[in-house]
């Protein structure tokens, strides 16, 4: 009996801190860092948009929340409430930080980001956590 209690005691000494540590690690789990992720798809903004226009549900399943690298024609930049959004033909990319980017309308740009949805109001793809990989520069 005494031995059994001892074993339980030892197990508790190990299990409780491990449990607390595990719960703590889970609680403080890091946010995704899309910029450092490997992309799941690499394509033009038009190609991505076409897939959503063809079959939104299938495209949702395939692309939403995935890191992608898309290339498209740069149109303009919007900047509200400190959030910078690059508008490409076929995609609206919310930038991960509010650093101003100097691009010229009409130029091709490659953006890395996470697909969040098809925007039926503007008929384009919405991306979040976007960065411009070095190869543009």
């Amino acid at each position, binding site marked *: 009996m005494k031995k059994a209690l001892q074993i339980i005691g030892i197990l508790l000494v190990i299990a409780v801190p491990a449990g607390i540590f595990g719960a703590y690690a889970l609680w403080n789990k890091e946010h995704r860092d899309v910029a450092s992720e490997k992309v799941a798809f690499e394509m033009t903004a038009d190609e991505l948009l076409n897939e959503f226009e063809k079959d939104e549900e299938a495209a*949702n*399943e395939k692309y939403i929340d995935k890191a992608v690298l898309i290339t498209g024609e740069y149109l303009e930049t919007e900047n*509200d409430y400190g*959030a910078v959004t690059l508008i490409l033909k076929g995609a609206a990319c*919310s930038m991960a930080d509010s650093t101003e980017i100097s691009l010229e309308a009409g130029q091709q740009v490659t953006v890395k980001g996470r697909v969040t949805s098809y925007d039926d109001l503007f008929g384009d793809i919405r991306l*979040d956590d976007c960065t411009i990989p070095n190869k543009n520069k």
Partner: protein
Amino acid sequence: MILFRTLLLLATVSAFFTANAQSKYYTRDGRVSFFSSTPMEDIEALSNDASSVFDIKTGKVEFGVPMKSFTFEKALMQEHFNEDYVESDKFPKAKFKGIFEFEGDFDPAKAGEYKVIAKGKFTLHGITQEITEKGTFTVSDEGNLFAVCVFHVKPADYDIEIPSTVRDKIAKTVEVTIKMNYKPLKR
């Protein structure tokens, strides 16, 4: 005569399009935040990715926000929100489609604050409910059009089930704040 008719038709058509172009406003960086407060825990989330088109002439407004664009302080909360509550893989957007009814006249050329009522269909988690909420439109001295609307969403109204283990941590009613800086739609 035919020429005259054609000209008249052209004039009418172009007048129609110009009127349309001028009366429509849009945003693509609408800010949506929500706040759930209980004695156990306060939870906040934010998105800057709301899209909206508003037609001053008709009052018609459409609004959409990607659920995957909400960020939480804790990655774990964000995961639970997406996977367990709003099921954003299945229902990627929350939408509103309805009208803004101004109390009194609204003049986008006159700076000031205007009270507005938003009426229409709000869709979240695949469930659509009729809502009526109060909001404010502010026309700044520079002619910018800011809309702010605070409304309350009961997760239960949208079939969002909160498991009993966390029920004390998530409010029965979540306060949602929408801020939009509308710009004239050129396209």
